[in-house]
């Protein structure tokens, strides 16, 4: 089977995956999940590091019933489209709840969880997921 997780890749993206550190265009506000010299929206070079907020709203969601490689043990699992205050959207695993508890607009907060486990190599990958907000404030 194909290798989906590689240590150098996990290392490269660690700050994004653990803390949602991003690169934001100072000209148009567009967010990049990778270090960049050029904005993917407006081609500006004025890019700076930023961090997405710890809270977001759910826009919509679904459930993955047939898992891809390295997600066999997790299935079925909820994945959702979330939106931050600045309008940035991400997809992510939604955890600590049942699908019935979710609806558009549900307040979510970021947690760090096990994302997947490469069965053959035993490599475990951690990163951001979201759960219904239980702490206060936004």
């Amino acid at each position, binding site marked *: *089977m*194909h290798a*989906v*997780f590689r240590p150098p*890749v996990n290392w490269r*993206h660690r700050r994004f*995956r653990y803390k949602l550190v991003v690169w934001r265009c100072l000209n148009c506000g567009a967010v990049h*999940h*990778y270090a960049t010299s050029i904005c993917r929206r407006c081609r500006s070079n004025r890019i700076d590091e930023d961090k997405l907020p710890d809270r977001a709203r759910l*826009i*919509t*969601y*679904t*459930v*993955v*019933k*047939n*898992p*891809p*490689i*390295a*997600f*066999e043990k*997790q299935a079925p*699992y909820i*994945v959702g*489209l979330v939106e931050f205050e600045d309008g940035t*959207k*991400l*997809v*992510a*695993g939604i955890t600590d709840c049942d699908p019935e508890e979710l609806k558009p607009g549900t307040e979510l907060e970021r947690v760090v969880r096990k*994302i*997947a486990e490469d069965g053959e190599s035993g490599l475990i*990958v951690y*990163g951001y*997921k979201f759960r219904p907000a239980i702490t206060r404030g936004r």
Partner: protein
Amino acid sequence: MRKVYIVGASLLKVDEQWGHSIDSLVSQVVDGLAEVRPWKIDSIYVANALGEILQNQANLGAIVAEDIGLAGVPALRVEAGGASGAAALVSGYQAILSGLADTVLVIGVEKLSDATPEEAVFLPSLSERYDLVGFQGVTESALAAMMYRMYLERYELPQEMVAQFPVIMHEHASRAPHAQYQFKTTLDNVLSSPVVSPPLRRLETTAPADGAAALILSSSDALPTIQHEQVVELAGAASSTDIVFPFDREDPLKLSAATRAFFEALARAGLSREQVKVLEIHDSYSILANLILESIGYSEEGASGVDAKNGMFDYGGKVVINAFGGLKARGHPLGATGVYQAAEIFLQLTGRAGACQVDGAKYGAMISLSGLGSAAYALVMKEG
């Protein structure tokens, strides 16, 4: 500007071809082009998406050239995910227009049956932004499911308005000898098939498929020197890209790359949408049928389901979509699919579509997508 013609087409039944390698499939499909003579090819374009992963085989330009007895001829692989076949066709069209080639062979080949079930779920993610989407376990079908849900909610539609498309596709494929799934189905069957990611059901998606299809293109200059049956003019071709993550687009329910590619290809061909009577669309997920038909103006936003229900896209309607069953039922051998679409239009416009024939079709078009519309290719063809 000189013209480009399709002078021959060949396709294999889409199937799980356990006994055959890529080399075998390529040799079989090219054998089906025997009616075109003489065999003088200036350039070869090979479309394939996943051979590097599934068959440990890159460099398919050179590999395929030798497989078909043409070692020496320039040959190249192009990849644009599920639109690889269409991308290879556009490349071949350009090669002829450049004057550097007079005859071009375009081959699409893909063998997905070598994948494990978990890989088959995983591999479509490669066309999305892996570091943003795939690594989170968000499969391409989960993205499609969220677009689907958003569509039903925005236009306040019952699921039937999307889920009926697979029923039409299977009906068409039941008359197509080269289709992967020749059984008919019903809306009830579709809606009671296993849930992949709600609301998306199994019968609204595709399954691993192997296949190969091939076309020979010729310049108008070289046409008199080639012995062939009928020809079709490749009158326009265009492509465009879009923001890759669908929910980053201004409107996730508008496939703007498809819009741009389709109207540019039509304009190059000097045709209006109304003249097109056979249309191949990229329905890798049922919802994409709706979104494509609305993005290229055949239906108002949210209205493609009603239009389909009224027969607008079927025999006797304004345009027949996916007369051989489309990706859903003819099958979706990823990198080869675009070449299948073009070969099927060729069959239609030369009157060789058998039980799938659309009578009186003089013009045909196809739309092929990579991912969920991050790239779109459109080709428009005229009766020769």
